[in-house]
């Protein structure tokens, strides 16, 4: 049994976890990139995510992240989602999660911090701020019709 374990988990081929990791990419389909410190790298399943990471998907891309408080966030194609702020205390469940959906589609399932403190998870869009009191939701931000295509 032990051997098969090592095999299965080796397949995940994840970078070593560090203290600043706040979650992991669990799903990556099609073109998915993570922008970190000005560089863009292809997102892979098992890759740790950090505060200030920006998830960018292409026309055929979608991706899902599990955060340390068990919040789940996914984005659909042509989406840009930034993790602006994230902290979670695994003892008290106190925390704060702020993300921005600049464009595209997002689905989320809130986790332990929202259960402890409603509205501790917030998603910004160009026009609004959404505070999460519980569980499952979807958001779409379409690109402005008349504006030049920027993010």
């Amino acid at each position, binding site marked *: 049994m032990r051997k098969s*374990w090592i095999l299965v988990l080796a397949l995940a081929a994840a970078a070593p976890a560090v203290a600043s990791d706040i979650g992991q990419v669990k*799903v990556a389909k099609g073109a998915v990139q993570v922008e970190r410190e000005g560089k863009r790298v292809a997102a892979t399943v098992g890759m740790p995510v950090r505060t200030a990471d920006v998830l960018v998907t292409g026309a055929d891309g979608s991706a899902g992240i599990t955060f340390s408080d068990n919040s789940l966030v*996914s*984005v*659909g194609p042509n989406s840009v989602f930034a993790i602006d702020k994230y902290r979670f205390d695994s003892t008290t469940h106190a925390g704060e999660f702020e993300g921005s959906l600049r464009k595209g589609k997002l689905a989320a399932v809130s986790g332990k911090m929202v259960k402890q403190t409603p509205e501790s998870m917030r998603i910004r869009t160009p026009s609004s701020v959404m505070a999460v009191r519980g569980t499952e*939701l979807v958001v779409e931000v379409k690109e402005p019709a008349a504006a030049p295509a920027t993010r």
Partner: protein
Amino acid sequence: MRLAAAALVLAAAGCAEPVARAPVGPELFAVIPGPDGHVGAIVVRSGGTEGTLDRAYAARRIAADGTAGPATLSPEEVRREFGGTLEALPGRPASFTLYFLEGKDELTPASRVELEKVFAELKRRPAPDIVVIGHTDTVGNLAFNDKLSLARAQRLREMMIELGIPSERIQAAGRGKRELLVATDDNTPEPRNRRVEISVR
């Protein structure tokens, strides 16, 4: 200055319709029921307006001119518009509860069986990671139990590493007496509360 810039953008876009500010794209927010039918709530604040969505498929639309208003989606619309996005949600974390033999470093026979289920669950997931969460009963103060529960979780974490789980895929946390399985008064011994939870995700 702002006017001039706006005029420039309009001219460049060849757009006839004058707008007072940068156009926004339409936005849509909706609450959807979870797999168990539970419906939560979100609050959408835009400019000076606020909308609380707390029914299944309750939605809020922000129009291109910035006006916000309530809406309702059908399950079909959610599937059509968000099907692929929802499909990309990671699998929900699975939770397992284990007990140690009283005063020993050894799991109870039932918990050893439960541990097998943990390994089976790990195999089902693409890049699994584990959190081992210790819990205590209410005997002793908060700080004491926080420490005790973390020590218990760390012990199980070590056991799982010995069984072949890479150490970087497994974390330990202590919840102390903050999350009782069986509600009791303070300072009450309760073996069912002295447990370790394994969350696989």
